[in-house]
């Protein structure tokens, strides 16, 4: 069975890649790929630019210059209030959620060695949703309780998938298929919970189900940011092992990677990232699926492409939120609808390109 059949080809001919290696006196070395660095820098700029535009969008439009001046603390009180209290937290939650989803998706796709092996497909998002729905429908819980429910649901699902897929080690394909089974069960449970709800709860649940950034405030920014600060160094530290893992378990063992340890650590981090993102914004679909793929195509580099995926996720989500607000008016359609449509287009594109290249 071909395990790498879906990867875009890496150019082996032509100009060699520009790579610098930084070495410290202590014996540490970091490999810097210039193209990847450029892509990351451009994506960061794009994400920040989209954020500024998004802050300026709404019932009270502001020019980019006004937004920047207000952010620097030189706006009038009205602008200060709108930017600081209403729009900035929403944009920050969007950036962080996008980053978490992009990074989590990259980890999942790398571990499952499949471009479609994202948390949307593997049942994690549905599991987190089930947790949130139980709180909404059975307990009519507050927003904070819903967040906790989603977090608990996501973590439980992640643990269940890992344990069910365990059989003398977790193999990528078994993980994917077990995830698909769990996804189907969770989807059915969610459907049942929605039929049980009264109409008001059901409407609230359906909006939550689509993934929305409406009405996010500072209380959601803090925990997400803290999680990213803790997990990001851990994940990047293991990136080298993850890269080896893509070559197959046997080669990784031979190269001295603790295969199961790295896999468990990375899966755990990915589950945490996705569960936290889902808890904050609902199951925003397809960002975790598309961001790593788009990032990979930009960097043209093999391996998990963690940083580019993270930045791509953030840029994608903020842009999608802006598009949702512009196209349908403020607060009409949640951001999840736009990402859902984008995901569908991406799937079709994948179909066309992969077939043309004769890879599927």
């Amino acid at each position: 069975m071909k395990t790498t059949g879906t990867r875009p080809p890496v150019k082996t001919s032509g100009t060699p890649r520009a790579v610098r290696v930084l070495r410290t006196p202590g014996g540490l070395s970091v490999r810097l790929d210039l193209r990847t660095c450029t892509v990351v820098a451009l994506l960061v700029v794009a994400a920040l630019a989209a954020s500024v535009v998004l802050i300026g969008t709404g019932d009270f439009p502001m020019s980019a210059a006004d937004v920047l001046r207000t952010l620097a603390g030189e706006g009038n009180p009205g602008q200060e209030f709108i930017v600081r209290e209403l729009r900035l937290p929403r944009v920050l939650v969007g950036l962080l959620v996008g980053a978490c989803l992009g990074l989590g998706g990259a980890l999942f796709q790398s571990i499952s060695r499949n471009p479609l092996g994202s948390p949307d497909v593997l049942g994690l998002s549905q599991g987190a949703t089930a947790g949130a729905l139980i709180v909404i429908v059975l307990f009519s819980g507050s927003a904070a309780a819903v967040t906790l429910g989603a977090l608990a649901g996501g973590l439980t699902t992640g643990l269940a998938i890992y344990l069910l897929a365990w059989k003398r080690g977790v193999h990528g394909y078994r993980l994917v298929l077990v995830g698909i089974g769990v996804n189907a069960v969770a989807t059915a449970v969610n459907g049942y919970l929605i039929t049980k709800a009264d109409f008001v709860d059901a409407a609230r649940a359906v909006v939550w189900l689509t993934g929305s950034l409406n009405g996010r405030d500072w209380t959601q920014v803090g925990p997400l940011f803290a999680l990213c600060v803790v997990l990001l160094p851990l994940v990047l530290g293991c990136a080298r092992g993850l890269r080896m893992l893509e070559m197959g378990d046997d080669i990784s063992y031979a190269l001295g990677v603790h295969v199961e340890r790295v896999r468990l650590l990375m899966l755990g981090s990915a589950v945490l990232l996705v569960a936290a993102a889902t808890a904050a914004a609902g199951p925003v679909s397809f960002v975790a699926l598309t961001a790593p793929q788009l990032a990979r195509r930009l960097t043209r580099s093999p391996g998990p492409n963690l940083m580019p995926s993270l930045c791509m996720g953030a840029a994608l989500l903020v842009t999608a939120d802006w598009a949702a607000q512009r196209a349908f008016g403020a607060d009409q359609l949640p951001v999840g609808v736009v990402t859902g449509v984008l995901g569908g287009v991406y799937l079709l594109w994948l179909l066309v390109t992969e077939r043309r290249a004769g890879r599927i």
Partner: protein
Amino acid sequence: MAARSLGLLVSVVILALVALTSIAVGAKELSLTQVWHGLFQDTGTYGDVVVGERLSRTVLGLLAGAALGLAGAVLQAVTRNPLADPGILGINAGASAAVVTAITFFGVTSLSGYVWFAFLGAAAVGVLVWFLGGSRGATPVRLALAGTALSAALYGYLQAVMIMDGAALGKMRFWTVGSLTAATDAVIVQVLPFFVIGTVTALLLARPLNALEMGDDTARALGAGLDRTRALALFSATVLCGAATAACGPIVFVGLMVPHVVRSFTGPDLRWILPYATVLSPVLLLGADVVGRIVARPAELQVGVVTAIIGGPVFILLVRRRRTAQL
């Protein structure tokens, strides 16, 4: 041969017993004499009305169960894929999305109107998943992934429609779980022709599908028309799934589980698998429906929820039992 014929007979008897249970059990408790009375000497008493309602529900369960099981067996054979299931491959989701579109944007309200949309959606998604999964070079994993990813996209669309249209939410949230509660005689009469066409086509395909399972080259050498068999098989699966989904909403895992159970005692011969699946799938569906009526009395657990909760673990067990190289 004799043992398998006898087994088929036993299966029919089991099916009859389950159907009888489905008529007798529910929120209102009925004695067996009342059931008998309601079935054969209808005089319009309360008990008779209840029996009448449950009868149409049971008949729809029989038809839909047989359709889903048969479609699953055919799909597993034609894709040479042990994990093929109308739910996993996204065909149910395609039919759902098309029906929602019909209800919301085209104002179609009757089953006879949106059953065509269900077929269209089922067929479109079937073909799309087949290509996304890699057509002839498809592996089970790729097909399952393609189906699930496409389902996710379609469910996103469903949710968007439900958010924008409150009336659609009221109707669709019950329909999208999959249940037999909407069954009436009119519904049954409308979908019956489709079930008949799909079932006959599928059963006639047993022999060429047998050849197809040996690989393309052998099948061609044995004289099976490859493309015609594939096209007819996909046609019958689409008609069966589309009709079942239009009548009951999306129900997952019935088409996955039953053919596997059947294969364990019939062997790989599709001439036996297909009839067995046709008889035993309604046993599962009606059984799940009865369980759903008992566990949440006096309310009900929809049959789609029960089959998913039973089927998910079976699916995972199948995945775990096989070596990854075989998948």
